[in-house]
C-alpha cells in the first residue's frame, strides 16, 4: 500500500481516518458517504477503469507514449513558434510549485510576487504594442480576437452597427473562433480587405492582422484613419517578437492589439497552454475583458499590487459582464514576462535581428534557386508559390528531413523561422528548397531584414529598470525567488478555497509537461508526428466518459467558462437540428456561479433566474413554474451539482426530469465534480452535458491564475455537435465551429489529468472523493461550535466543502469575513473563499490531499481567531484597533520602533506557538482596494515611485 500513488495523493493516513470518523460520529467512511449522497443517485457499480499505477510505472508507460511522438523542426508559424525557454526560467518558474500551485490573486496581500510579475507582463505588452494598458493575459489568440470584437461592439455608439470587417488574411483558426463568437450575438463578419472596404454606418469595427496570415506586414495607419473617420474601431492581431522590429500598432492608431505571447519562452506544447495578450486604450479599460493588475497601496501607504476593476467581471456582473472569462494564463504570462526581464530590450532586439536576417537570407537564396517569394514585406515568414508538383516534392523532402513547413494550398509553402534555428538548420531548410541543385548558398550573417524602412520601429521599449537589470542567471534566479517568497502556494500551506479544489498537483503528474516529446510539438504538425498525443487524448477522453457516464468528450475548451460556452452552443445546435432553434431560454438558479449567466449571454440566450429556498436549495416549484411557462422556448437548465452551497440536493433527478419534460436540456456545471467521481455522475443524475474543470478535480495546478482546462462531456444525442477545428479534424459529424485556437486546447497539460487518472485508477479516484468529503465533514465537526455552518444535507452533512457564516458575529462585533480572511494570513494560511456564494461568509474546501495535521492546524487557527473575535465582543479588545482589523501584520510593522496598538507584537505575529517554528510573513499589510480602483495604474510605476 505504501508505494501506491493513492497513498501519496491522499492526506489522511489510515489511522487518522479512524480518528476522524470518530470526530464526525460516523461508524465508517461508507456510512458517512451514505449520509451525504442521496441513495437514488449512487452509482450501482464501481468505475470501470483500471487499477492505479505507481509513479515509476506511469512514467515508464508514458515514455512509451512519448516515443510515439516525433519531434521535428517546425517552421509552420500560424501564431506558434518554437522558442528557447531559458533553463533558469524552466526550473525556477515552470517546474516550480511555488509558481504553479498558487491560486488567482484575489487575496492580494499574499500574492504580491506574482502580481508584480503580471504587472511586468502588462508593461511588456503595453510597450511592445504601443498601447496604454494591457490585461494580465487571455486564453489564446483566437479568443482574444473574439474579446476584441466584443469590446468594439460594446463601445460602438449605435447598437444597430453589427458588422465587423475582417481582413481575409488572418489565421484560419482565429477566423473560426470569431465566427463562432459573432453569430450568437447577431454580429455579421464581412471578409474584405479593410484598406479598400466600404465603411457604412453598419460597421462597428475592423479586425486585421499584421504580420498577416501570409507573413506580410500591413500598413495599419490608413486602415485606422478610414475606420475612425467612419466611427469604427480597429483591432490588430500581432506578434510580440515582430513588434520589437516594427512600428507598434498603437502608433498607427489601433484601438486594440491582441496576439499570442507563446514565443516569449513558453514551449509549444501541441497548442498550449500559452498566454494571449490584450492591450487597448486607457479610456476603454472599464469595458476590457479579463484580469487587470493595478497598483495601489497598503494600509501603511506602501506600494502594493492587486487585481483592479473587478466589477467588470462575471462574478459580480453576471449576465451583464464584459466577458465570461474567469481565468487568465498567469503561469504562462509570468514565464513570458520573465523571458523579457531576462533578455531585456537589447536581448530581444538581438533575437529579432537574427531571425529577420536569417529570413531575408533564406528569401534571397531560395529566389536564386527559382522559388518565387511573394511577400514584399516580412519579418520571419516567407511565402513561396510554385506549381503543385514542385511543392509536393518539396514537402516529401522536408518531411523526410524532419522539417515541417506550412502548406496553405497545394501550390504554396510558407516558412516561419524562430529563435531556435541555427545556421545548420537554415542550411538544411535551404537544401530542401534547392533540391538537386548543388550550388545553393546562403549569404553571410548580417543585418538584413524584410522590414522596409517605413515599417521599422524607432521607439524605445522595455525601458523600465526591471527589464534592464536581471540579465545574469544569478540575478534572475534571485529575482524569481524574491517574488516567489512573497506568495502562499500549496508548497507553503493548505489553500482552503471553497469551490476551487486546491488539491495536490503531484510532481509525477507535472514532470512530463516539459518532456521535449510533448513540449516541443507544434499544434499543426502532420497527424503522424503526434501519435503519442493522439493516443493520450483518446484514453483520457474514454476515462472522462466513464467518469461522467457520457458518450463522448471534447478536450478543446480551454477553461471552465469556455466549456460552458461550448456546451451551450452544442445544446443550441441540437435544438436547431430538430427544427427548434427558437429555444433560447436558460434557467439558472440564484446560487449559480457568475460564469453561468455570462456564458448564456455570450451564447445569445436569455437568462431566467430560478429561486432558491432558505436552505439554499433550488426551489423546485419555481423551477416547475418557469419551465412550464417557457415550454416553447426553453433551451436548458444550468445547474451545479453538488450545489454551489456544497450540498447534494436530493431532488436533482426530479429537476432534470422537469426540464426534459418541457423540451429542455440539462447543463451540469462540473465545478464540484470532486464530490462525484466514482460515487455518482452527471449522466446518472440526468444531465445531458457537463464541463469538467481539470484544474480542480483532475489535478492541473492553478498556476497562480491559470492555465485551466474545461473539457465537456455529452450524452449520445449531443455527440455529433462537439466542436471541430479549421485545420485539424476534431469533434462530431455536425460539429460546431472551434471555441479555442488549438484543436485540443492546452494539450500539454492534459498530461497532468491523464497522469492523475492513470496513477489513481478508478478505485483511487473514488477513494479521493470519499476522503474529500471526510475532510470537509471533519472541519464541520470541529468548527461548528465556533462558527455557524450554513447549509447541510438532510442528515446534517456537507459534501466536499462548507460555508461558515460570519454575519452574526459581524452584527455583534463589527468583525467581518474579510477581517477573518486577512487574519488567517498572520497564521500562515491562504484565506478561504470570501463572500461566495453567500455574502458575509467564508467557504472552505479542504480537498482529499490535506493531511489531518494540517486540518487541525487550520482548526486551531480558526478557533484562536474566534477567541480574538470574542475579545472584541466582550470589550477586552478595542473594536477598531485590534489584531483582526489590522491584519495582516508585516515583519516591518511588528519590528518597528514605534508600536501603538493595545495588543502585543507577539499577539500580532505569533498568536499560536507553532508559528515560532515556521512563520510566513505577509509582505504588505491590508491592501487599499478603493484607492487602487480610483487611481488606476496598470503598468510598472516609474522609477521615481520606488524612492
Amino acid at each position, binding site marked *: 500500500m505504501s508505494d501506491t500513488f493513492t497513498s501519496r495523493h491522499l492526506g489522511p493516513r489510515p489511522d487518522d481516518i479512524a480518528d476522524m470518523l470518530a470526530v464526525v460520529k460516523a461508524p465508517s467512511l461508507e456510512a458517512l458517504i451514505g449520509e451525504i449522497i442521496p441513495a437514488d443517485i449512487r452509482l450501482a457499480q464501481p468505475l470501470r477503469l483500471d487499477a492505479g499505477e505507481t509513479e515509476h510505472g506511469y512514467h515508464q508507460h508514458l515514455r512509451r507514449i512519448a516515443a510515439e511522438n516525433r519531434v521535428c523542426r517546425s517552421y509552420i508559424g500560424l501564431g506558434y513558434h518554437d522558442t528557447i525557454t531559458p533553463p533558469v526560467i524552466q526550473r525556477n518558474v515552470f517546474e516550480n510549485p511555488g509558481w504553479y500551485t498558487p491560486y488567482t490573486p484575489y487575496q492580494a496581500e499574499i500574492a504580491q510576487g506574482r502580481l508584480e510579475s503580471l504587472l511586468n507582463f502588462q508593461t511588456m505588452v503595453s510597450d511592445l504594442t504601443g498601447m496604454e494598458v494591457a490585461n494580465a493575459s487571455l486564453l489564446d489568440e483566437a479568443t482574444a480576437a473574439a474579446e476584441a470584437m466584443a469590446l468594439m461592439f460594446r463601445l460602438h455608439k449605435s447598437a444597430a452597427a453589427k458588422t465587423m470587417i475582417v481582413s481575409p488574411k488572418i489565421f484560419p483558426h482565429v477566423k473560426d473562433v470569431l465566427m463562432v463568437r459573432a453569430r450568437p450575438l447577431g454580429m455579421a463578419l464581412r471578409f474584405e480587405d479593410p484598406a479598400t472596404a466600404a465603411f457604412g454606418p453598419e460597421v462597428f469595427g475592423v479586425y486585421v492582422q499584421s504580420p498577416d496570415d501570409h507573413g506580410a506586414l500591413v500598413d495599419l495607419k490608413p486602415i485606422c484613419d478610414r475606420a475612425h473617420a467612419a466611427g469604427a474601431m480597429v483591432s490588430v492581431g500581432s506578434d510580440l517578437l515582430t513588434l520589437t522590429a516594427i512600428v507598434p500598432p498603437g502608433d498607427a492608431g489601433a484601438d486594440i492589439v491582441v496576439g499570442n505571447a507563446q514565443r516569449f519562452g513558453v514551449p509549444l506544447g501541441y497548442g498550449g497552454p500559452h498566454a494571449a495578450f490584450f492591450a487597448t486604450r486607457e479610456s476603454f479599460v*472599464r469595458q476590457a475583458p479579463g484580469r487587470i493588475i493595478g497598483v495601489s497601496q497598503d494600509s501603511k501607504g506602501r506600494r502594493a499590487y492587486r487585481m483592479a476593476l*473587478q*466589477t467588470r467581471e462575471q462574478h*459580480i*456582473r453576471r449576465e451583464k459582464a464584459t466577458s465570461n472569462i474567469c481565468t487568465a494564463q498567469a503561469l504562462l504570462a509570468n514565464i513570458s514576462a520573465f523571458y523579457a526581464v531576462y533578455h531585456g530590450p537589447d536581448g530581444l532586439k538581438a533575437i529579432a535581428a537574427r531571425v529577420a536576417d536569417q529570413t531575408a537570407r533564406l528569401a534571397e537564396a531560395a529566389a536564386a534557386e527559382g522559388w518565387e517569394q511573394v511577400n514584399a514585406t516580412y519579418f520571419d515568414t516567407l511565402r513561396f508559390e510554385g506549381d503543385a508538383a514542385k511543392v509536393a516534392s518539396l514537402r516529401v523532402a522536408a518531411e523526410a528531413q524532419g522539417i515541417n513547413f506550412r502548406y496553405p494550398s497545394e501550390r504554396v509553402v510558407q516558412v516561419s523561422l524562430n529563435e531556435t534555428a541555427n545556421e545548420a538548420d537554415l542550411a538544411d531548410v535551404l537544401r530542401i528548397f534547392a533540391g538537386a541543385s548543388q550550388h545553393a548558398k546562403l549569404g553571410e550573417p548580417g543585418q538584413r531584414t524584410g522590414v522596409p524602412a517605413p515599417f521599422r520601429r524607432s521607439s524605445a521599449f522595455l525601458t523600465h529598470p526591471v527589464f534592464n537589470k536581471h540579465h545574469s542567471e544569478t540575478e534572475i534566479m534571485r529575482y524569481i525567488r524574491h517574488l516567489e517568497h512573497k506568495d502562499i502556494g500549496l508548497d507553503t500551506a493548505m489553500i482552503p478555497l471553497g469551490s476551487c479544489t486546491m488539491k495536490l498537483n503531484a510532481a509525477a503528474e507535472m514532470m512530463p509537461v516539459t518532456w521535449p516529446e510533448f513540449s516541443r510539438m507544434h499544434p499543426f504538425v502532420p497527424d503522424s508526428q503526434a501519435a503519442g498525443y493522439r493516443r493520450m487524448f483518446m484514453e483520457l477522453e474514454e476515462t472522462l466518459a466513464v467518469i461522467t457516464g457520457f458518450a463522448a468528450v471534447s478536450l478543446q475548451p480551454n477553461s471552465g467558462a469556455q466549456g460552458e460556452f461550448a456546451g451551450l452552443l452544442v445544446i443550441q445546435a441540437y435544438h436547431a437540428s430538430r427544427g427548434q432553434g427558437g429555444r433560447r431560454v436558460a434557467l439558472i438558479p440564484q446560487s449559480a456561479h457568475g460564469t453561468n449567466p455570462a456564458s448564456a449571454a455570450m451564447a445569445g440566450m436569455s437568462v431566467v433566474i430560478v429561486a432558491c429556498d432558505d436552505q439554499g436549495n433550488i426551489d423546485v416549484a419555481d423551477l416547475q413554474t418557469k419551465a412550464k411557462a417557457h415550454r416553447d422556448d426553453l433551451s436548458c437548465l444550468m445547474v451545479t451539482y453538488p450545489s454551489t452551497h456544497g450540498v447534494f440536493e436530493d431532488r436533482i433527478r426530479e429537476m432534470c426530469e422537469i426540464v426534459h419534460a418541457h423540451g429542455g436540456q440539462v447543463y451540469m456545471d462540473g465545478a464540484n465534480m470532486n464530490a462525484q467521481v466514482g460515487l455518482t455522475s452527471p449522466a446518472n443524475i440526468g444531465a445531458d452535458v457537463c464541463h469538467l474543470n481539470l484544474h480542480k478535480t483532475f489535478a492541473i495546478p492553478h498556476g497562480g491564475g491559470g492555465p485551466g482546462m474545461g473539457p465537456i462531456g455529452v450524452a449520445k444525442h449531443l455527440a455529433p455537435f462537439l466542436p471541430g477545428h479549421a485545420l485539424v479534424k476534431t469533434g462530431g459529424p455536425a460539429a460546431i465551429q472551434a471555441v479555442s485556437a488549438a484543436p485540443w486546447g492546452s494539450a500539454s497539460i492534459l498530461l497532468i489529468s491523464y497522469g492523475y487518472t492513470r496513477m489513481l485508477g478508478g478505485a483511487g479516484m473514488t477513494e479521493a472523493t470519499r476522503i474529500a468529503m471526510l475532510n470537509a465533514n471533519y472541519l464541520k465537526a470541529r468548527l461548528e461550535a465556533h462558527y455557524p455552518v450554513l447549509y447541510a444535507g438532510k442528515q446534517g452533512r456537507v459534501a466536499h466543502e462548507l460555508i461558515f457564516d460570519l454575519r452574526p458575529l459581524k452584527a455583534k462585533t463589527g468583525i467581518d469575513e474579510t477581517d477573518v480572511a486577512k487574519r488567517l494570513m498572520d497564521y500562515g494560511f491562504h484565506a478561504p473563499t470570501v*463572500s461566495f456564494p453567500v455574502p458575509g461568509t467564508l467557504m472552505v474546501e479542504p480537498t482529499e490531499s490535506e493531511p489531518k495535521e494540517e486540518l487541525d492546524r487550520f482548526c486551531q487557527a480558526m478557533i484562536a481567531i474566534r477567541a480574538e473575535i470574542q475579545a472584541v465582543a466582550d470589550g477586552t479588545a478595542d473594536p477598531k484597533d485590534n489584531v483582526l482589523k489590522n491584519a495582516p501584520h508585516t515583519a516591518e510593522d511588528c519590528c518597528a520602533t514605534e508600536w501603538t496598538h493595545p495588543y502585543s507584537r507577539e499577539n500580532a505575529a505569533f498568536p499560536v506557538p507553532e508559528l515560532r517554528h515556521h512563520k510566513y510573513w505577509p509582505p504588505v499589510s491590508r491592501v487599499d*482596494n*478603493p484607492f487602487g*480602483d*480610483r487611481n488606476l495604474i496598470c503598468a510598472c510605476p516609474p522609477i521615481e515611485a520606488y524612492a
Partner: protein
Amino acid sequence: MYPTDLKYTKDHEWVRFDGGEAAVGITDFAQRQLGDVVFVELPEVGRQLKQHEVFGTIESVKAVSELFSPVSGEVVAVNGDLGNHPERVNNAAHETWMIKVRPSVASEADALLDSAAYTELTK
C-alpha cells in the same frame, strides 16, 4: 432621519426639486450598502429619460448597481466632478448630485416617497 427637503425612490435615489430642475443622487443608505464608490458612469447632457429608466451605473470595489431616474425629462447637467472624486458620494451622499433633469411630467413627483416613508423603507 433623511432630509425633509428631498424626495426619494424605492431604488434609493433622492431628488431635489429646485426651480425648473430636479437634481438626482443616491441616498446615504445606498452608499453604505455599496461601500467605497470608485466609479460613476453618467449620461450625456441632452438625453431624454423616462421615469425609472436607467441613467447610469455606480461601482464600488465589490458591487455595481444601476441608477434609475426618479422623473422623466431631459438631462440638463451632469456632475463632472465625480469622474475624479467618486468618493464624494460616500462622504456626502445627499449633497452630491449626479444629474439634473428638467422634469417633463409634473405629476410624477407626487408618487415619490417623502423622508418619513423612505426612513420606514430602510428600517
